[in-house]
């Protein structure tokens, strides 16, 4: 009988789900924040052989000098195997060395395309957006060239939208067959979307987002209610296992004791 935690935050649920999705011995390209916590949790549980890569240049570190605050943080180099710079990291991605990329955005559409550039009318108001976001960073590259990507987005109706205001990181594009191949992209695109409400995948035929599992306490209806477009539902939809007491202990005591990214 697994000992499940009863007291955990949304961030901790996302991190746990992310960690469980990672296969051992895979190379993972991670952005700042929850993905760093997820990778470290996976390394301490099901994936001791996981190899993190950070876009500023560090390959295969162990995050044992406390959590980095940036993908360019000196802490991302702790016990690294190889350190170069951004070109090197993205060349690895382009060459096929990166199995999984973790990316996020402010808006997501049914095909897993992401916006992290601007809120406002594009292209008319590109130079005068309503809200200017920080920009692509490396997400626009990871979305193209990692073998596949896992997306983490806050689950709110205004963020899950049928049409993005700007297409920064490319998912399954318009969902048409071979769209990514035609655009010249190499990676297979988004495979999973993790939120505090659900674990989602993409339909093989239409490439539209599909609920695979609901997070504990959620239902298909409650997930749909906070989504700004129609979600498909997998015929074998299930309830995701809550975090175990051990997973929560590792997050709180070992990985992120000062709650840099995982607020309680």
């Amino acid at each position, binding site marked *: 009988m697994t000992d499940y935690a009863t007291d955990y935050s949304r961030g901790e649920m996302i991190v746990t789900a992310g960690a469980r999705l990672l296969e051992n011995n895979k190379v993972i390209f991670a952005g*700042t*924040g929850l993905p760093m916590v997820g990778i470290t949790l996976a390394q301490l549980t099901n994936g001791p052989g996981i190899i993190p890569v950070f*876009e*500023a*240049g*560090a390959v295969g570190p162990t995050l*044992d*000098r*406390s959590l980095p*605050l*940036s*993908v*360019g*943080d*000196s802490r*991302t*180099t*702790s016990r690294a195997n190889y*350190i*170069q*710079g*951004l*070109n090197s990291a*993205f060349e690895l*991605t*382009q060459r096929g060395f990166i199995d999984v990329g973790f990316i996020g955005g402010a808006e997501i559409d049914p095909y897993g*395309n992401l916006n992290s*550039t*601007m809120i406002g009318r*594009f*292209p008319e108001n*590109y*130079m*005068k*957006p*309503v*809200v*200017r*976001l*920080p*920009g*692509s*960073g*490396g997400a*626009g*590259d990871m*979305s*193209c*060239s990692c073998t596949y990507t896992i997306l983490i987005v806050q689950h709110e109706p205004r963020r899950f939208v049928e049409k993005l205001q*700007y*297409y*920064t*990181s*490319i998912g399954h594009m318009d969902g048409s067959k071979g769209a990514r191949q*035609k*655009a*010249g*992209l*190499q990676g297979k695109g988004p495979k999973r979307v993790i939120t505090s409400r659900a674990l989602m995948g993409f339909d093989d035929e239409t490439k539209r987002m599909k609920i695979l599992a609901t997070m504990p306490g959620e239902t298909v209806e409650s997930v749909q209610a906070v989504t700004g477009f129609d979600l498909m539902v997998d015929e074998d939809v299930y309830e995701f296992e809550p975090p175990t007491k051990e997973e929560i202990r590792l997050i709180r005591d070992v990985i992120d004791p000062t709650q840099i*990214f995982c607020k309680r």
Partner: protein
Amino acid sequence: MLWTGLSPDEARTYIEQKDKSKRDKRMTMTEAVQTFVKDGDNIGVGGFVNSRQPVAIAHEIIRQGRKDLILSFQSAGLVPDYLLGAMALEPEHLSVQRMEFAYCGHEYAGTSSMLRYMTENEKIFIEDWTNFSMSARFKAGSMGIPFIPIRSGQGGDIEKCNRSQTTQCPFSGRTILLIPACHPDVGILHVQEADLYGNCRIKGQTFTCPEIAMASKNVIVTCDKLIDHDIIAMDPTRTSIPFFAVDAVVELPLGSYPTVCHDIHYYDKIHLEHFKGLTDAFRKGDRDSLAAYYDAYIYGVADTDQFIDKIPYNQLKYARQIESRNLELQTHLTPPTA
């Protein structure tokens, strides 16, 4: 084709005629910026987000004032915020006309209020790229080629916002993105170690500093430590940037403070978050607090020595201590409070 900075032909011609002699390039910060940063220049900004940002050089550019600058970088936080903040306060003293970049913000600490203020009020021209495409633009410049093909950055809206072009690869027939080289007028970099000739050693991630140095017309380097040339010559495989790419060497311990400098000091989160808070307040209408910061920490001091004098010693000490200690040893330290 619009070449911001130098065109590939201009960049090549400049290096051909340049004095490449191995000579003493030490300068004061004032002299380096006076000599190599001009109105209208495209500035290649070294570092990455708030890591090894050339803060001291940015402060001196602000003190001296320049007009119509272009900033080129992959991801940056504090340096563009400082320059845009100076422009927001006094546009007749310092102005940025254009930014070519992939990310401007502070990662864990949030978005850039100065980028928001400038774009949402349409005060600068923006060209969006991705981290790889900006990095590869510097790389193409460093390789002496006018463009480079990459396998990302196409298929969405980013390619509609910049000078990249998709084409069919003549060999594979696949769609591919071509991006133009970037040759800044001046590259501004902070490194851990350099000798007096300009040979640089970067510790930890190199970001795109070597590429920016090789692509730029002129390069100003600040270094935490000025090291003996014999140390360079003993292990030249450790040299990240060769002397003839560098035009000014300024010995400046803590020249990238309060951003992190691998092996030297960690972030000073208190100072970074204090400044970030003032920029947030500016965007919401509080001009005076940000102006007071510039008066105290930039205009009110002659140089970086005096800037660092204003940082409480316990903040400096803590940033130094945690940079080299593992988690277990860190827990025995008491973090300073603001």
